[in-house]
Structure formats: structure tokens, C-alpha cells
């Protein structure tokens, strides 16, 4: 016996008023709409509980009554009343097909009740599955999970920079500056600028260096020596270093350009 779960929540008197057939008194419609989840639910209840014999229902009266509900429910819950109306239409259609004389050539046709039975049984199974799910242990109800505290430390990572990021940034600088035609950077030029920084670093440490000390002739290849020389010239051109020589053929010195 399947009693609607919400029917059980209704007071005793309401349960006593549950319908015996598909006719629902208009003044009780709202109660039924609340107690049942729809016409399938109501039909299922009637079949399981009362062994409903739909053949005994005066279909003409039922139809008139359902039309009456629809009028009453026009303002609210219209779609719910429509569900019930649709169900009674299905039932009437089934009944009418049952009453039609059977022709020999359509004898193989499926019993018109089969589809309704299939739907009712599927709905019944879902209804029971829903009850079972509702009773299933749930986090927050029957299950309480561990949530002890821990000190959240964040290992701060410096931003990652890729070569692509760097190139994109430089490209956007060039584009915005609008004079990139004059700033095409070759590998050689990059090397020169890098050497400029290195020479400045060394001069910062030693104040003054002999020109020849800046060249590692034994270890550096010719191209690197050239790059170093270009770096010195560029430093001088940009006024970053001062190159001095007391007199011809005496050592040439490099020092940071500093007026002191």
C-alpha cells in the first residue's frame, strides 16, 4: 500500500477525506493539490489503495467536473489543474478505445492500458527511490565531517616571467613609443648593452680600471672582445664613463664619469 508521503503529514481528518475516485469536490481541490504530487500520484494512490475500477466512473460527469476546476483555478495553479485534466483525458481515451469493437486486423495492437501502467509503475518506482534518497545519510544531518583548524600559510611565489612575456612587453613599449624603427635590437647590440652594465659594475668596485684590464684576451673570442670594445665606446658616447690617457703611449684608464 502506497500512501503519499505528504498525505501522511496532513492531519487525520484530511487523510479520512482522501478521494475514492477521480472526482474531487471543488472546495477540496487545494487540499488534494497539496497532498498529491499530480494526477499520476493520485491515480497511483487510488489504484493501490482502493482497487479503483475506472470502468465504473461516469466519465461524462468527471469531465464536466474537471472543466469546472479549470474555471475555478484560472487565476492560480492553472497548470496544476491542467495536469489533472490531461490525466482524465487520457483515461477517457483509454476507456473509449477499450469500448470500441475490436477488428480482427488490429488485434495485434497494444493494450491501450499498457502505456499508462508502464508510466504508473515507473512513477511509483521513482517515488520509492525518492523516499529512500530522503532517508539516506546526508552530510550536515547524519554525517558530520572533520574540519579542524590549521594555520594557513601561503608560500608566496614571485610572479613567473617567461621570455614570451618579456618579448610581448618590449614589443608593446616599441609600438607605443612609435619609434621602433630606430630601436631594432640585434643580438650584438644586446650583448653590447649587457657588457656596458658589466663594465659599470666593475668600475663601481674599482673606481678606475686600466683599459687593457677590461679585455680577457686569453679567454674571450674575437667577437666578444669586439663587443667589449663597442660597449666601452657606447659608454663613453652616452657620457657614462670617462676615458683618460696622460700622454701618448701611456696606459689608458677608464673611470666612472663623476665630476668631483
Amino acid at each position, binding site marked *: 500500500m*502506497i500512501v*503519499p*508521503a*505528504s498525505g501522511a503529514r496532513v492531519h487525520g481528518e484530511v487523510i479520512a477525506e482522501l478521494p475514492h475516485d477521480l472526482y474531487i469536490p471543488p472546495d477540496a481541490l487545494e487540499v488534494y493539490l497539496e497532498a498529491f*504530487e*499530480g*494526477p*499520476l*500520484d493520485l491515480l497511483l494512490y487510488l*489504484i*493501490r489503495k482502493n*482497487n*479503483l*475500477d*475506472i*470502468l465504473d466512473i461516469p466519465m461524462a460527469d468527471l469531465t464536466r467536473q474537471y472543466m469546472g476546476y479549470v474555471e475555478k483555478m484560472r487565476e492560480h495553479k492553472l*497548470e*496544476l489543474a491542467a*495536469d489533472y485534466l490531461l*490525466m482524465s483525458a487520457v*483515461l477517457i481515451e*483509454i*476507456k473509449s478505445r*477499450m469500448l470500441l469493437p475490436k477488428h480482427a486486423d488490429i488485434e495485434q495492437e497494444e493494450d*491501450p*492500458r499498457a502505456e*499508462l*501502467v508502464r*508510466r*504508473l*509503475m*515507473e*512513477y*511509483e*518506482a*521513482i*517515488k*520509492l*527511490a*525518492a*523516499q*529512500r*534518497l*530522503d532517508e*539516506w*545519510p*546526508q*552530510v*550536515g*544531518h*547524519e*554525517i*558530520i*565531517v*572533520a*574540519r*579542524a*583548524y*590549521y594555520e594557513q600559510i601561503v608560500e608566496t611565489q614571485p610572479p613567473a616571467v617567461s621570455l614570451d612575456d618579456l618579448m610581448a612587453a618590449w614589443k608593446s613599449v616599441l609600438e607605443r613609443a612609435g619609434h621602433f624603427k630606430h630601436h631594432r635590437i640585434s643580438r650584438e647590440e644586446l650583448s653590447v648593452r649587457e657588457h656596458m652594465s658589466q663594465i659599470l659594475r666593475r668600475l663601481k668596485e674599482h673606481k678606475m680600471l686600466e683599459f687593457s684590464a677590461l679585455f680577457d684576451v686569453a679567454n674571450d673570442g674575437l667577437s666578444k672582445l669586439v663587443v667589449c670594445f663597442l660597449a666601452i665606446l657606447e659608454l663613453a658616447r652616452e657620457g657614462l664613463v670617462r676615458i683618460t690617457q696622460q700622454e701618448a703611449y701611456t696606459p689608458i684608464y677608464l673611470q666612472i664619469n663623476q665630476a668631483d
Partner: protein
Amino acid sequence: MNEPNNTQEMKQVLEAALLTSSEPLSLDDMLKLFAGRMERATLRMLLDELKNEWQVDQVKSTMELVQVASGWRFQARSEYVQFLARLTPERPQRYSRAAMETLAIIVYRQPVTRGDIEQIRGVAVNPNIMRSLQERNWIDVVGHRDVPGRPALYATTRTFLDDLNLRSLSDLPPMEAFTQQDMQLQL
């Protein structure tokens, strides 16, 4: 503490992580704890050992280590829940019958459209029900059926499985368990 270099220390790191994590920890999560210096098979073994350390007859007995859909978590043994419930009088609300039927259809018939749900229940689906199940992250849209209107296809999520203490949908009773005796329609 240096990197744990024996199973006892490793289990302690796992226990600390599992007792403090607000979400179940997957094996991949737990491998991160050891910064790559842990084999998956070893981790499984350690979890089994840790689970055994937390048993009713052990010193550690209030929690149990369980495996759910998205990983492992500690949860209070059921005998304590009645007391813990006294701390939080207002619990997450239970769903209406309509909502539970809708959920059951999604659970057992997924992926389904709203139309499928309406067909099975015989009534229109209240959009609030779908919304609240989605907001709880119990269901989500996994695709669209290729018919006019391209209706959304709904399915249950890992969070749903976690919240119901399930490792997979197959942990639920099969649909056949709910199929009742055949009915005779006396039409």
C-alpha cells in the same frame, strides 16, 4: 619538520591533512603533500593503515576514515552525531517531496531534460527546484539534447555523491529494488 621519511611520519602528515581539510582529499591531492616523493600504491597502503588506526577499539576512535566519490575524508562516527547535532539546531533543510522525486529521476535516469522529468512525474517541474539543486551543487548541466530548443541535460555531481557518502551511483540500490508488483488496471 623535514620531509617525512618513515611511514609513521607520512601517516601523521596524512592524518593532519585529512582532519583539517574541508573537502575530501583525492589521491592526487595527497600526493602533493609529499611533493612528488610518494608512490600511489604506497599512499593507498598508508591510507588503509591510517583507517585501521582509527577504529572503535583503538585509542583513536571518534572519527572514521571513509572514501567517497571525490576522495577520502574523516567523519565523526555515527554514534556521536546525535550529540554534535545539539550544537547546530538549524541544519540544511530537507527537500520537499517534489524536489526529492525530481532528484531521484535525475539520479536514476541521468542525463535527463526537464521534459523527461515532467513526463515521468506527470506534472510541470518547478524551476525553483532545479535552481536549488543546482545551487547546492548536487546537479549540473552536462550537455544539451539535440532536439529543437536544445534542452539542457541534467546529471548529478560528485558533490552529491560526497554529501550522501557514496563512492559512485552504483552504491545506491538499483531501480529494480523499487519496482513494485505489477498492477492490473481495471479500465
